[in-house]
Structures are given as structure tokens and as C-alpha cells.
């Protein structure tokens, strides 16, 4: 089932796009906007209420024996995907679907015709540990985004961790190329935060679905987040502009070289890849907002092993 991470990695890739490379997970996809996130508004009754075990256990057991393939009569549980805490349905309006599908195909071609071959060539020349180091470097540079958003979300513990990480990795991690802060001894996990998530935690809805060329899946809220975060990105202030853009494009190629095969797997598994990516994006963003503070188990990039 490993393949599933591809959903996310891919997502990260698509979402993050060039601009985003530095925070390699999806932290990139900041903006989400405020449309109908189709929420099951009412605070869902606790799972226990919804599915009194006494009733459903026998019901299910009976169903499985007598008529496994019979009709479904209890939708409460199934409709939620089976998780108690999942009050919000991960759905998104998609009024721009024709445009979005066109952009999806554009990004798909961009990947297969350009990004992938370039990344493969680059991967052949540069050994993996070096590429992991470069990835660490870009991640470290995006520190201001994570730090500021921790503060904006009033997560001071997270902000302190980020500050500690930045200090440790910059000083002892050779300017951010290594990631000693993630080692077991120091254990300062990266806090994946972005401005779109921050807006989400303020109660702003994601809005509708947009696929940007190059940047990938987004929403009005996440687009605002993306733009907001870009002001905290050092490359934004590099002049001339094409040097900064070039650096970001390089970060993107480097990242792709570490995740070749992920997008392909995602596509292979999907019945309708466009819808699959859209859904994965929405689920991922929604969960990220719900989990703020309790960071989804942080991604560790770690110290490259020689």
C-alpha cells in the first residue's frame, strides 16, 4: 500500500509547483478559499450515537452471513467513510471543470515531456545523498513561512520548534544542507504550515477547485495563501528576478528527481485521474486544517546517509 503516499507526494508536486519546492510536502499549497466546502454543518453526533454498537454489530454480522451483497440500510457510518471524527465531507465545487481539466492535461504533459526527463537526467548525474541535501537546503530556506504561520495559528510551541530547527540546521547543518534537527537526539520535527491552512483555521472555506498551470491543484483560499507565503520566500527578493525563479525551478527538478514514479503510480491507480487528484487534494487540505497543532505525523527528511 506504499503506493498511496504517491497521492500525496504527487499532490505535493502538483500543488507545490515551481514556486513551492522548498517545503516539499504539501505545505506548499497555501491558498484555499471560501466557497462551499460542502460541510455537514451540524456538529455530527458522536460516532457512538451514530452507530450504536449494539444495533449495528448484529446487523452487520447478519448481513455478512445471510446476504453479504444485500442492500445497505445504514448510511450514517458508511457515508462518513467510517471514521468518527470526519465531520466534514471532503468535497469541493468544481464550476471550472473544463478549464481545470485542460490545465490538468497541460500539467500532465509538462511533467512527462519536460520535468520528468530533466529530473531523470539530473538524477543520473547527481547522487541521491546530494539531492536529499539540496532538498534539505530548500526546506530550510522556507523556514519563515512555517514560522510565521505557526505564529498566526497561535501555535507557539510549533514556532519555537521551527526556530530551533532553523538555528540547528543552519549552524550545524552546514547552512541547511543537512538536517540534524530531525535526528532522534534533537527531534525537532518540521511543522508543515502554510498561509492557506492558516486561513482555513480562521474558518475561511476553501471555495471552488482551480488547477493552475505549473502550480497545480488549488482553490481561491489556497491561492491567496500561496501568494501570501511567497512574500516570506527569500527567492522572491532575489534580483534579477530570473535568478530567483531559476532557483525555484531547480528546487522543483531536484524534488522531482527524488519522487519519480509517484505521479505515474497515482495515475495508474485512478479510474479518472483528474477526479482522483482533486479528491486527494481536498482530503489532504481538509485534514491538514483539522489537524493543525497536532501536526500530521511530520515528514522527516533526515540527514542524508553517506
Amino acid at each position, binding site marked *: *500500500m*506504499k*503506493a*498511496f*503516499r504517491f*497521492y*500525496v507526494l504527487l499532490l505535493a508536486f502538483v500543488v507545490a509547483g515551481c514556486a513551492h519546492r522548498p517545503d516539499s510536502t504539501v505545505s506548499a499549497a497555501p491558498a484555499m478559499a471560501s466557497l462551499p466546502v460542502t460541510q455537514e454543518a451540524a456538529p455530527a453526533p458522536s*460516532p*457512538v450515537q451514530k*452507530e450504536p*454498537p449494539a444495533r*449495528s*454489530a448484529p446487523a*452487520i*454480522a447478519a448481513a*455478512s*452471513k445471510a446476504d*453479504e*451483497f*444485500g*442492500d*445497505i440500510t445504514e*448510511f450514517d*457510518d*458508511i*457515508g462518513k*467513510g*467510517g*471514521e*468518527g471524527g470526519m465531520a466534514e465531507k*471532503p468535497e469541493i465545487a468544481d464550476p471550472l471543470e473544463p478549464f481545470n481539466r485542460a490545465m490538468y492535461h497541460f500539467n500532465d504533459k509538462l511533467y512527462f515531456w519536460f520535468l520528468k526527463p530533466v529530473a531523470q537526467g539530473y538524477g543520473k548525474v547527481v547522487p*541521491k545523498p546530494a539531492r*536529499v541535501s539540496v532538498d534539505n537546503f530548500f526546506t530550510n530556506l522556507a523556514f519563515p513561512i512555517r514560522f510565521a504561520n505557526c505564529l498566526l495559528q497561535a501555535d507557539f510551541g510549533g514556532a519555537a520548534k521551527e526556530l530551533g530547527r532553523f538555528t540547528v540546521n543552519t549552524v550545524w547543518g552546514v547552512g541547511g544542507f543537512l538536517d540534524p534537527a*530531525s535526528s532522534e537526539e534533537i527531534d525537532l520535527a518540521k511543522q508543515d504550515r502554510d498561509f492557506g491552512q492558516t486561513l482555513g483555521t480562521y474558518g475561511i472555506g476553501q471555495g471552488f477547485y482551480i488547477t493552475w498551470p505549473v502550480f497545480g491543484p488549488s482553490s481561491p483560499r489556497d491561492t491567496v495563501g500561496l501568494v501570501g507565503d511567497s512574500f516570506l520566500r527569500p527567492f522572491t527578493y532575489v534580483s534579477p528576478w530570473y535568478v530567483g525563479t531559476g532557483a525555484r525551478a531547480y528546487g522543483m527538478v531536484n524534488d522531482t528527481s*527524488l519522487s519519480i514514479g509517484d505521479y505515474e*503510480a497515482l495515475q*495508474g*491507480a*485512478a*479510474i*479518472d485521474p483528474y*477526479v*482522483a487528484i*482533486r*479528491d*486527494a487534494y481536498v*482530503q*489532504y487540505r481538509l*485534514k*491538514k486544517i483539522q*489537524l493543525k497543532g497536532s501536526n*500530521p*505525523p*511530520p*515528514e*522527516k*527528511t*533526515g540527514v*542524508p*546517509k553517506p
Partner: protein
Amino acid sequence: MKRSIMLAIAIFLLLTLPAFAGAPLDTVQLNVNKGLDVLRDPKLKADSAKEAKKEKLRLIYNNLFDDVEMGKRTLSRNWNSLNTAQRQEFVKLFRQVLEKAYVDRILDYKDEKIVFDKESMVSDTQAEVYTRVLTSSNKEIPISYRTIKKDGSWRVYDVVIENVSLVLNYRTQFNDILSKNNPEHLLETLRQKVKGQ
């Protein structure tokens, strides 16, 4: 007399304990580890043993996963608009689609470590088991298994990777197809998917 009471209590405890001692996590851990054993089995390393490996993995999959439950949850309300024959075919095809999509990636598995963190009971008959996969490049991927208890044993009906639920993801796709087409069209799409590529 006293002895036999003690014995009865002991037997009672033995019989009942496993049912309460983190059964969902144990089930997942046991089967996932069995799967890893197959993947790492030096005897099955050769390319020619690929089919044998797949066959073994299928058996483990059968023990761990509940195809029908997964199919029901994936179709959700649409399940009822399929007739029984279509439902059976759907479950079969869906399974084949998943196998086809993921088996090669799973066979590539070797250096990864899996940490079984905890389980959380959603109700008496449902639980979520949280695990993390540590990859060779030192990345961590959270994976959780949603399980349901049927006839006394726990089976998995959904896998959530990096917060993306497999069932929900396919449900969105199938809903999209079924909102514009009839069930036969969906089945045909799946048949093509299984055949193609």
C-alpha cells in the same frame, strides 16, 4: 471444587482476553508482518518467483481485507442501485484494479520499516490502526487502517495514506461516473481498466 472454579476462571480469562487486547492492531500487525516476510523471503528473490510471491500476498490480503465491505463503502449509496450480480462483479473488479495498480509497487518494498503506533476504537466494532512507514530515504509516511469486526475477527475496509482515504478517493471518482452514467457503464470502465495497460 475450588480448583475447578479457578480453572474455569482461568479458561474464561484465556478465552476472553484476546478479544480485548488490542485485537485490531494485532490483526493488522500480524498480517502486515507476514506480508513483509514474503517480500523479504530470500527464497522468493528470483524474478521467476514473482507469481508465487503474488499468490502468497493474495492469501494474506484475503485474511486482512474485507473486499465486500470496502466495495460497499466505496459505492456508498450507489451500492443499492446495482443488482446483486453487478455488486459481485464490482467487488471482484475493484479488487483487481487495486491489485493491478499497487502490486508492483508493493513488490518493490524491501528496506522500509513499519512502526505500529496505536489503535483507536471508533466503536465496539470499528477501530482505526495507526502506522508509519519509514522509507530508505528517511521519510515518514503515515498510514492508517480502518477496521471492522465481523464474526469475531477484525478486517480492514479502508486504508488512509497521508490523510487521504482510499475509499473516499474512489467514492468520489465512482460518484462522478455514476452521476452521468448507469452502473453497467462503470463496470465496463473497470473491465477495461483491468484488461488495459
